[in-house]
């Protein structure tokens, strides 16, 4: 772990006071960046300088800083989370950059994610899609013994692949249509794979897709930018499974039951 070879970086960061004000890219220079720093720690250093100069710090979302909470976001040089394989922004380390590099940092941009301030966006739309059906109605106290329902390992593993979604919204930010099909598909697919999820499967697909569309997310046109950028490596096969669930339900599910549970 190197502690020398410190770098200097030129940053262009999107500054925007609030949702209604205009934003612009502002230049900053950060010196003494260690290769062992995380990307967010590098911004911490910048913010520390700003506080000392009496200026407003750069607002960005972050929490666990270990790649699992899904709170950190940012477009780094035009790519969600910087475009490194299976990596969230908080897990990007500065050894991936060179001394003198210019790095452009912008918020996730999508119609469904309005900007709150600087690099912070409002991803509340994700909760609304989840509330439309991203659950199994198993009220507390109803459950049978955990081993009463056997689930073949390959099925459980595939459900887990889908369930790994951290709800960060990188898929939406990187999609030319601002579609939320990957995170929604991951949830629909996870629950459609499991026997517990079957009873509500048709209603889930219909309600979630309907809600998704009303919140300003676009449709999927299979660019697969989402899969390439997803920090948890979630496959667009889950979108395909969701589409099958949706079609099946559209043919077989009775319309009158549809409103309950919608966002």
């Amino acid at each position, binding site marked *: *772990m190197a*502690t020398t070879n410190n770098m200097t970086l030129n940053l262009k960061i999107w500054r925007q*006071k609030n949702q209604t004000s205009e934003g612009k890219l502002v230049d900053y220079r950060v010196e003494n960046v260690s290769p*062992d720093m995380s990307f*967010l*720690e590098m911004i911490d250093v910048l913010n*520390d300088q700003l*506080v000392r100069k009496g*200026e*407003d710090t750069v607002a960005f*979302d972050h*929490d*666990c*800083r*270990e*790649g*699992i*909470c*899904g*709170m950190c976001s940012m477009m780094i040089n035009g790519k969600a989370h910087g475009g490194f394989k*299976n*990596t969230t922004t908080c*897990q990007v*380390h500065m*050894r991936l950059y060179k001394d003198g590099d210019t790095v452009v940092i912008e918020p996730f941009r999508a119609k469904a994610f309005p900007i709150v*301030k600087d690099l*912070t966006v409002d*991803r*509340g739309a994700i*909760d609304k899609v*989840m*509330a439309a059906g991203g*659950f*199994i109605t*198993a*009220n*507390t*106290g*109803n*459950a*049978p013994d*955990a*081993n009463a*329902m*056997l689930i*073949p*390992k390959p099925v*459980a*593993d595939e459900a*887990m692949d889908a*369930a*790994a979604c*951290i*709800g960060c919204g990188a898929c939406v930010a990187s999609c030319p249509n601002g579609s939320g099909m990957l995170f929604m598909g991951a949830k629909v697919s*996870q*629950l459609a794979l*499991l026997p*517990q999820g079957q009873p509500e499967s048709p209603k889930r697909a219909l309600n979630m897709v309907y809600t998704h569309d009303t919140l300003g997310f676009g449709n999927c046109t299979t660019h697969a930018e989402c899969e390439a950028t997803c920090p948890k490596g979630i496959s667009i096969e889950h979108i395909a499974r969701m589409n099958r669930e949706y079609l099946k339900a559209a043919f077989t599910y009775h319309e009158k039951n549809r409103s309950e*549970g919608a*966002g």
Partner: protein
Amino acid sequence: MSFNLDPKIPAGPLSEKWDKHKFEMKRVNPANKRKFTVIVVGTGLAGGSASATLAELGYNVLSFCIQDTPRRAHSIAAQGGINGAKNYPNDGDSVRNLFYDTIKGGDYRSREANVYRLAQVSNNIIDQMVSQGVPFAREYGGYLDNRSFGGAQVSRTFYARGQTGQQLLLGAYSGMMKMVAKGKIKQFTRREMMDLVVINGKARGIIVKNLITGELERYAADAVLLCTGGYGNVFYLSTNAQHSNVTAAWRCYKRGAGFANPCFTQIHPTCIPVHGDYQSKLTLMSESLRNDGRVWVPKKKGDTRKPADIPEEERDYYLERIYPSFGNLAPRDVSSRQAKFRCDEGHGVGPTKQAVYLDFRDAIKRDGKEVIAARYGNLFEMYERITADNPYNTPMMIFPAVHYTMGGLWVDYNLQSTVPGLHVLGEANFSDHGANRLGASALMQGLADGYFVAPYTISNYLASTPLEKVTVDDNAFKDAEQAVKLQTSKLLGIKGSRTATEFHRTLGHYMWDYVGMSRSEKGLKTALDGIRKLKEEFWSDLKLNGDTSDYNLELHRAARVADFIELGELMALDALERRESCGGHFREEFQTADNEAKRDDENFTHAAVWEYTGSNSSPVRHKEELVFENVKLATRSYK
């Protein structure tokens, strides 16, 4: 003594207490539940599961979280697993066995009745989570798989790859969202609780700060559930998330809730070592790695050879040597302390010499790389991303780091604090882990409290307590809001020269050096003096820009640091007063000939509960005596 520390443990045999209590508790008629409103602060495993369950029962729930969505609460970061006494592997596990391991693991400083109940409901949790679609790991036959964790000689840990906390939290969150859609939960995000409102001696509401607008908001209810997690960030560097803080719990303490065993802190043995001043957090490497990884240091002091060049006979597998029956799966407090001892003796490795090896060479040789990758692949990748070392080829370097706080607000058997109507769940309370928590027990406790304990005891409280009508226009709300405003303008008015982060970092140094893995009277007094001075400096030299009308992140941070400084002082005081060693609390003056913790059962078989008495007077230390009727107090041995 103004505190009522009656634990309200039901009479009768240990295994029948909870059933008996459930029968005896008062219930709220189904049609009347909709007349009650309950505030739940926090949306981790405890808060999420409690919100969902209370809403399912018919209560109106107001749910608050500090992040942008409930799904990001820090429970999400738990990696390894959750315990349940299912005995699926047929290795002789039972409720009594899980109870016993947890009591012993906590070094006999937790309450028997609570821990037994925790073990009892552990099985319901596994059932509940499976039925909600949590994709736990399975065997080829379709049955659930288990693995082992520290401090147990059975395999009782259920897991979902290295993301168990995430999967459980998403399960609880999905239950919550289901009730949000039904209108039974009103969800408030990016809110931070700033004060508790107490009216006629009962918790009746909260003041929260809208973190985006900076505005203060008032909410009234019939009961308040605090599910705000632990306070490990008092050490500045810990495995906790950046937003994890003590403010909500601390403000409750100042409103009359007793704070129990604040000094009981868990230092987790397997974390990625500190490597720079700019560092903002420490990353945990799951305890499950110790199922296959072997911990060692070079026998030669100051050995600078590469690990691969150090021959077998020159390696000290010290956990296997000292604790042959538990080996690398010795509990966390014990493993951490031994790592510290090795580094203090000069056997530490890496650039800072503050690290030991966690080596998978033998496991890879035995099982093959693929098997190890299937078990720990994501953890190995995470390690490589942070350190640029590949653990398949070279051992991990690890060192202990602050991870969990066993201490917290005091609660009785009903999870009610010393303020009636204020219930405290999960890591925020003190009840179940004594002086040391065993691995895979935090998830268990959060969900036990939220799904299977609080929903009953809250009903009992609401059904048996006369609750006057209150509104947010009552004076108590105005006064509480005014107090928060006053503090905020005080912070903004200091106009000093040092940032909140600088103060926090300095506090962290005091805590780690003197209130960390090893504590002494002299060190604790140094910490107390230093922290008191730091507090004065904070209130006279804090640098803060901006005002309250904006998304002012520095202001939010400063308010948290102010509370952390006060908490740090209380932790040092608590550690000083507990003149024994137990679990994670290691006082150098009290150790056995072979450096193990030496308890003083005669004088310290109690929970120390601190009462706030005002900003200018010392807090008062009360005791809840712990009575052991079913377990014989013994010297804890993992040898």
